[in-house]
């Protein structure tokens, strides 16, 4: 029967020991242990959060970088294009200019040639005229050296005039 009857002495000691244990453990064990565990849990969750955030940031940075790269590429392309255009233009311009110059030169040369030619022609004409006159003088002189010849000539000329 006394197996199921509480004993005052043991109750007293159990009370003292359990309450002391509860007090000391709460103050010096559970508080620091659970505090550390909580702090660690928080640290871990914060670290995870930070990692997630960093990941997102990295992603944003990456896309930003890509954009930057794309922009740079586009800029380079446009610059190249511009340069090419400018060069082309320059070439075209200089070509035009050269052509113009050449044309000018050619025209001038043609002009000069023409003038020279004209001059030469007139000179030649004068010369030929002189020569012709000389020849004609000589011929006429020969023709007119005798009376017969003068006469034949006059006749021939008359004939020519007639024929005309």
């Amino acid at each position, binding site marked *: 029967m006394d197996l199921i009857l509480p*004993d*005052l*002495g043991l109750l007293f000691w159990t009370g003292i020991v359990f309450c002391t244990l*509860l007090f000391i*453990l709460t103050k010096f*064990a*559970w508080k*620091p*242990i659970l505090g550390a565990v909580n702090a660690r849990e928080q640290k871990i969750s914060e670290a995870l959060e930070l990692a997630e955030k960093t990941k997102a940031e990295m992603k944003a940075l990456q896309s930003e970088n890509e954009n930057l790269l794309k922009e740079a590429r586009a800029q380079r392309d446009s610059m190249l294009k511009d340069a090419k255009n400018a060069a082309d233009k320059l070439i075209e311009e200089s070509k035009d200019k050269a052509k113009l110059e050449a044309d000018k030169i050619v025209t001038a040369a043609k002009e000069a040639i023409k003038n020279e030619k004209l001059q030469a022609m007139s000179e030649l004409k004068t010369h030929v005229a002189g020569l012709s006159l000389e020849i004609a003088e000589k011929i006429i002189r020969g023709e007119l050296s005798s009376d017969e010849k003068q006469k034949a000539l006059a006749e021939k000329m008359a004939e020519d005039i007639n024929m005309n």
Partner: protein
Amino acid sequence: MILKNPLATIESLSTFARIFADRQMKIVSMSIIKLLAFTLLVVFSTSLSFASGGSSTEKEFNVGEMIMHHIKDAHEWHLWGPEHGGTSIYLPVILMDEGMKVFSSKNLYHGELATAIDHKTHQSVTYYKGSGSAEGYGMFHEKIYKLNNGELSFEDGHVHGNAKVFDFSITKNVLSLFFGAAIILAMMLTVAGYYKKNGAVAPKGLAKFMEPIIVMVRDDIAKANIDKHKYHKYVPYLTTIFFFIWLNNMLGLVPILPGGANLTGNITVTLFLAVCTLLVTVFSANKNYWSHIFATPGVPKLLLPIMIPIEIVGIFTKPFALMIRLFANITAGHIIVLALISIIFINKNAAWGMLSVPMALFISVLELLVAFLQAYLFAMLSSLFIGAAVEEAHH
């Protein structure tokens, strides 16, 4: 466990039985084994005492007596040898009888072995009569009484007419209690010291072993049953009660000093723990809890005179079940291990050890599980009761 409708409330009459049945489904088969073994033990011991018939001069080995002696408290820590006159550690006896009296229990155990005649049954009863500083006191079945005219008088096998003195002795259970508390303190303060030294880092060593268990109590026992804004307050109590029960359960399984006392299988200890849970529950209970007891919502007014007493009884049956469960499980574990070992001594043949030792080993391993399970259940149900007491009304 506030009951929401009248039908359920009526059920609370059987709360004790229900909790017992529901919560122990897992270990019900074990309990059956224990019951069988206990029955066997009783049959054995009675048949044996009949068989001996008092013809032999040597005192027969009485299994029942030995086991009952073991599972009860004592003023000595018996180590080996015969029960009387073997090697024991004599523990200090502290009596409150017109001032404090302290003496060694050796003065009782080694005092005079007196014999008295029972006034009713007329059989002779033996008891210890103190000598030396224990003069004037007698001890019968580990209870200390004051002697009247130098003797104890008996009626129906009980001491009758002698004043019982207040006994605050450091008994076997009290010493075991000190050991248990010291071990828990040493372990937990070491763990706490680790965190103090290293901060919030990944645990190593003892802390690595203890942390998951502490976190389990916090998360699976406290957080799971108590409102998440209020559970913090109860975690220290629940962890303390869990480790107190678990460690003392296991200490009881160790057959040599400092183990072997049947502390958590002692009704006084389980009573104290259950009262603690009752007090925590009652003092943290909110308006919602009391309104479910004194004016259960949805119950017709006419039924209240029946309902209120039922609900009030319900407050006490829950911790009562806690008390009985722990006491019965641990005591049964001790009984079955001792009974199995006793097979050898009943048959007086060491060859029986081939049977009894493996069986005792098996049960001892099972008891390790029970040690944990009972601590877990006690903390879990305490948490459940507290959770119900602090639960906010939700309609």
